[in-house]
């Protein structure tokens, strides 16, 4: 019980700090990093639902993010949609596209799920590259309209407004997903992962759970993609790349799966750490070497990620008191 209370207290304190941070930190570069961390945290913690909680080796999650990026980009840039409409459309589109990917996943397990979901994300990338009349091809879409409200551009005043939009998206996602996994249906997701045969013998419909899981995890990723697109004002095919997938997957595994807050914390650490390394121009090409080595070291030394470390630490504190 006390562990849950500690968690809630820590979460509330973090939230309060993040709310007031822009009042003290006026540097737009730091705010930019925070926005980036918020967006990737949403992608990482929503991936945790399918990969961690449901135990599905879904490797195409970043494709949902990419679909969000392009849905918003195409609607706002090519078809003149209001960005405020194009943003939720990204979530809807990602949710819908999770259904066709669920079909092969229902029939397969283990490494085959990795391969088929990986093929799905590559298929998305290839379609984006080949349909340049719509997507701009390898150059992507540029000069996408930003979020505005009564002629107030959200990028003004040191990205002040974008900061809060991204924060709201993150907080909303974390709360929604945490609640979702605590519902009886959410318990069923874990039950199915732990023991599929026993789960079937207790009335759990594997197909229904897997489809729901993929759709639920795709929606926040799509929304994050939409916001990413409106914030950077571009849609580029790199969002489907190995690099993006590796980045987000490392947040997930470094943070610890099946925790939601772990990947969120790791997203902050990784975004800030990799930006911190930018301060050493001599390090330039070695930056990725360092990050890769750190990831391997963490997987090796702390297999349950940062969340596992935090758990062990609080356990010890509770024991000591």
């Amino acid at each position, binding site marked *: 019980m006390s562990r849950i209370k500690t968690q809630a207290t820590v979460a509330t304190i973090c939230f309060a700090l993040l709310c007031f941070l822009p009042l003290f930190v006026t540097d737009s570069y730091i705010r930019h990093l925070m926005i980036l961390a918020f967006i990737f945290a949403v992608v990482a913690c929503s991936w945790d639902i399918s990969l961690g909680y449901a135990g599905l080796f879904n490797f195409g999650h970043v494709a949902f993010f990419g679909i969000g990026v392009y849905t918003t980009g195409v609607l706002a840039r090519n078809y003149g949609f209001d960005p405020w409409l194009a943003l939720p459309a990204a979530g809807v589109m990602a949710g819908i596209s999770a259904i066709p990917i669920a079909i092969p996943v229902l029939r397969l397990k283990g490494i085959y799920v990795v391969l088929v979901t990986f093929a799905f994300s590559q298929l998305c990338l290839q379609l984006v590259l080949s349909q340049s009349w719509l997507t701009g091809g390898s150059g992507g879409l540029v000069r996408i309209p930003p979020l505005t409200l009564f002629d107030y551009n959200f990028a003004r005043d040191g990205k002040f407004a974008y900061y809060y939009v991204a924060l709201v998206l993150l907080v909303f996602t974390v709360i929604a997903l945490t609640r979702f996994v605590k519902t009886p249906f959410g*318990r069923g997701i874990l039950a199915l992962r732990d*023991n599929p045969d026993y789960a079937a013998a207790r009335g759990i419909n594997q197909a229904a759970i897997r489809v729901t899981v993929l759709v639920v995890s795709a929606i926040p990723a799509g929304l994050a993609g939409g916001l990413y697109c409106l914030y950077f004002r571009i849609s580029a095919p790199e969002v489907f790349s190995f690099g993006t997938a590796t980045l987000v997957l490392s947040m997930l595994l470094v943070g610890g799966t099946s925790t939601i807050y772990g990947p969120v914390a790791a997203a902050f650490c990784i975004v800030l750490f990799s930006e911190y390394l930018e301060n050493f121009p001599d390090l330039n090409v070695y930056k990725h070497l360092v990050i890769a080595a750190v990831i391997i070291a963490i997987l090796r030394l702390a297999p349950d990620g940062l969340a596992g470390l935090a758990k062990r630490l609080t356990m010890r504190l509770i024991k000591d008191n």
Partner: protein
Amino acid sequence: MSILLEVKDVTRTFGALKALDGVSLSLRKGEILGIAGPNGSGKSTLFNVISGIPFHATTGLISYDDQEITRVRPHEIYRAGLARTFQKDCEFSSLSVRDNVLVGAHFSSLREEMHDDTAIEYALDLVGVEESKRSQKAENLSVFDKKRVMIASSVVSKPKLLMLDEPASGLTKPEVNQLCELILAINRTGVAILVIEHIIALLLKVAPRLLILNEGKLLAEGTASEIIVNKDVIEAYLGGSTHP
């Protein structure tokens, strides 16, 4: 009394092997029926084809509560009120004891009637899992407690038929006695029970009627006292020894 479960001429083959070969049986509402047989006699296969986990019958007909369920998907079979347990101690390891039972309730036909946790606490009271253990993770329980939680997660859905797959395996003697009491107590609430056991001793205590399977076929059927003097049974099942 009316028939609850009817198995007609059911066969299950694996390549050339006939694990079940034309087995028929019927079970009345509220009855306890025991099924015994040596290893490899097809007991577990019979349970598997009835529950649809992990496979269905090759040929034959299975009906439950006047509806055919031969090819019905396993989760629907459970929702119709037919719950099974497994021989090895099974649990949803990352869930608490209460949540293990909650899953059994939530995905049954009773979901709409569940407003609070009383049904869950009641089921855990019935099987005798102590209050202090109910918030723990199920994976930390003893073998007997795991088995009791598995039974609780099925009785919470108020099934009409409970199928117990070698419930006594891995239990100590006093635990087996407690288990017998539990089986009888569940039966008194009106639940029919089909129980497989390798050890006939347990079946003799709880099941008025017994079936003996051997090499995928029905070898004998009768009351406990008839079965233990049946020559075929002694020959095939006990291998001629006098061990009960």
